[in-house]
Each structure stands twice: as C-alpha cells, then as structure tokens.
C-alpha cells in the first residue's frame, strides 16, 4: 500500500484528476476518481469532488440543482468502495 511505486501511481492519478477538473471533459475526472477510490483510501477524491462543485456549480432553482452532486458522490464513492478496497489491499 505504501510502497514508493504505489505512492507514485496514487500521486499521478490524483494530479491527473486535479488537472482534468480544469481542462478535460468531466468523464475523465470521474474515471480517475473511481480508479483512485478503488485502489486507495483516497481522501483527495473528496476534495476533487468539492473542487468540481465549487468551480462549476451555480445556484439552482430546484432542490436537486442546489445539491453538490460531486461532493456527495465522492463521499459515497470512497465509503461505498471501502469493503472492496479492503479486499484488494489485503
């Protein structure tokens, strides 16, 4: 888990996700967030989700349009994948 090679992969994925928030189509960010969450207990996924919402979300008129979907989605993602991740990390 904490080997230098694994850390490099994690840093690369996190940096890729961060850059994609600003420059790439949203599906790139989503794929990288899922990849990070699958393999690592990646708290950075939460902050990337928050960044997407703060950067792109605008005040909405309906209840659902006011929800920070990517922040909530990131929280669900990192916690929902915890059992699977524990199996992978064994």
């Amino acid at each position, binding site marked *: 888990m904490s080997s230098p090679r694994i850390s490099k992969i994690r840093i690369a994925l996190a940096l890729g996700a961060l850059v994609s928030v*600003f420059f790439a189509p949203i599906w790139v960010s989503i794929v990288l967030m899922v990849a990070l969450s699958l393999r690592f207990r990646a708290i950075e996924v939460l*902050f990337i989700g*928050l960044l997407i919402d703060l950067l792109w979300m605008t005040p909405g008129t309906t209840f659902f349009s006011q929800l920070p*979907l990517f922040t909530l989605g990131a*929280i669900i993602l990192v916690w929902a994948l915890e059992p699977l991740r524990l199996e992978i990390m064994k």
Partner: protein
Amino acid sequence: MARHEFSYRSLHGAPRGRQRLLFASFLVLVIFAIDIASHGAVRNAIRSSESVLWRATASVRETLLGGAYFTSKRSLATENASLRTLVADDKARESTYSALADENRALREMLGLREREAGITAPVVSSFRSSPYGTFLIGASESDGIKNGDIVLTSQGFVLGRVVDVGNRTASVRSAFASASRIDVLISNVAAEAEGHGSGNARVFVPRGIMIATGTPVISASFGQRPIGIVGHVVSDESRADQVVYVSLPVELSTLRYVYVVPSNQ
C-alpha cells in the same frame, strides 16, 4: 481460515486511515457550508484561480489543440519533418503571432456586434467541456457591469447562455443547451420545446408534416428573440407523428476566446 467481516459500524477502534477518511468527509461538507454561508467566498477564490490558470496555459493549449497533434497522419509526418528544421525561437514567435492574429480576428468580430447591440466583450476563462453542470466562466464581473440574467452571445450573435453567478473577477454562465435543460424555441414559425444535450446541442420534437430545412435558424423568446442555434439534421419517421430536429450552435465552442454580454432587457 477466519474471514474478516467488514462493517461500517466498527469504526470505533478502526485504523487511522478510516478515521482520516471520516474526518475528510466532514471537512469537505464544512467547507461547502462555509462557502454557502459566506455567499460564495470560497468558490470566488477558486474561480479566480481557474481564470489565472486558464490564461497562463493559453499558449500551451493553443499548441496542443490547434497544432499538429490532432491532424492527420500524413500532415503530422510533414509537420514533424518541417519542425525539425525550426529553431526554438521561430516556433515561439509563430505561436505568439498565431495567438495574436486569432485574438485580433475575434475582437474585430466583437466590434461588429457591438455596433448593433450595447454590451461588454469578455474573455472566456475556462473550458466549455469540463463542467458537469453545463457552465463556463467569463473574465468579467460586477465591476464591469455584469449582472445575473445577462445574455451571453457569440461574435455572430448566437446565444450561448445566461449569466447565473457573478463573482469578484469572473462570472459563471449556464449554457442555453446545458444537459437536461428545457427551453422554448421557434423553428420555422413552429413553437416547440428544445431539450439541451450539452456542448451546444439540443433536440426538438415537432409535428411531422412541417417542412424544416437544414440550416434554419432557431429562435428563443426567452433570450429576446435571438437565435440560439441552427437546424443541423432532421430525422423523420413515417411511423411517428413527430420528427426529431437536431439543433446545434454554428460555432466550435472550444475555439471561442471572447463572448459578448448584453443586458437581459435588451
């Protein structure tokens, strides 16, 4: 072999990693709450940073997207051969000249639009395709006279969207054809509702008997009877009572560098 049973309820005494994850989950919610309580102070700071980052990387993006990387294989080979002979200074000068020429052309077009409608020319300071909410940022703010509800146009006068959030240095614009948006339109004097599909595309259902030609402008009353796109393709099926009209903006969004913002009451 004893099997480890996972339980979310066993966080008491859980490894530090899970406690850190729990703390981070609360932290992001707290940051979001702070942003709401401070009327967008956090998002304003982030959007200003995005604006600076977007401008700082303009020449790199120009080289990557407008250069040889995405052209055909043959032209790539030719380009590669010629690039080998170029010195670094020449490349930099050419890139700068190209960027300035594009900017000059865009500003000239804006000048033509300005003569017809009073408004503000603003640079686009974010990507059009990165936002999951169908939004993009422009480099103009309240101090420039931008208000919520202002209409954002291309240099040809087509509606891009509406200003929905004005910050300190940037304003957020929601695309007229954002995904899942619905907008009343007029095509060949037929009133209909357009469903936004993102990236400047929409779909409209109109009765099958009506003749609609490709290239017909699509008008929207909610944007001051301005054109919001043109008919790109019509699919008519005899087994259905309606035909599907695909509407798109006649501009390549990724190449847009400036937009024109007009007050909503115009």
